[in-house]
């Protein structure tokens, strides 16, 4: 590999908890890795194991579920 490997991370976030936390992090200009793709859900309870598997199938290197 020529360049340093950048993992693709899919994060499932609850609209009311982690998504707001991510928003807050953005507003307060805290820095965090740019390789995280956030998917907003109304609740982490909506996460079905199939979501996680589908993420891996489509090429995610890691899956974060946060609520």
């Amino acid at each position, binding site marked *: 590999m020529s360049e340093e490997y950048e993992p693709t991370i899919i994060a499932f976030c609850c609209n009311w908890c*982690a998504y707001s*936390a*991510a928003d807050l992090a953005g507003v307060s200009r805290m*820095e*965090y890795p740019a390789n995280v793709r956030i998917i907003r859900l109304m609740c982490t309870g909506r996460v079905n194991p199939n979501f996680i598997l589908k993420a891996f*199938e489509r090429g995610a290197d*890691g899956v974060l579920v946060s609520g």
Partner: protein
Amino acid sequence: MEAVEYLLDLAGIGRKRMKLCWVSAAEGQLFVDYVTQFSEQTQELGPFSPDEFKVPLAAVEQTLDSPRIRWLLGMSRQLTERENVYHEKVDPEEYKGLLHEAIEEEYEKAMVLEVIKEGPQLVREISGRIGLPKPRVSFWISQLRNTGQAAIEGYDKTTPKFVALAA
């Protein structure tokens, strides 16, 4: 979550590629910490190749969809915190053992089924593909034939080849 983690380990993907964490709306810094840490951890694990894990991933999905696992997962609190119809409470560790056993079995079966979905194959070939002993593969093939999910299609001399039937 525990079941998914266990299956990811079984499939050789590893539970480290998944993480569950709780963050409240006020904890921006905590979220940043989790994400940074998880990102570093994933980076150490290296890239994930979905093509290489196509069969295990499909098998994991099938396992989680199987009635047996869904039933066991749905009954977890009933069995360990309340009691079953015989007024017996199941020890959480025993329940975990049972769940793992069921997951292993369903996963083996799903792997066999996924492999023969690709075309007619000998028991020997299936065994080689998924690294499961031949008697075990034969056992699952007979189970799958009983439930109408697999059938004989063609022979190599006198040895039958098996193929998956559409559900």
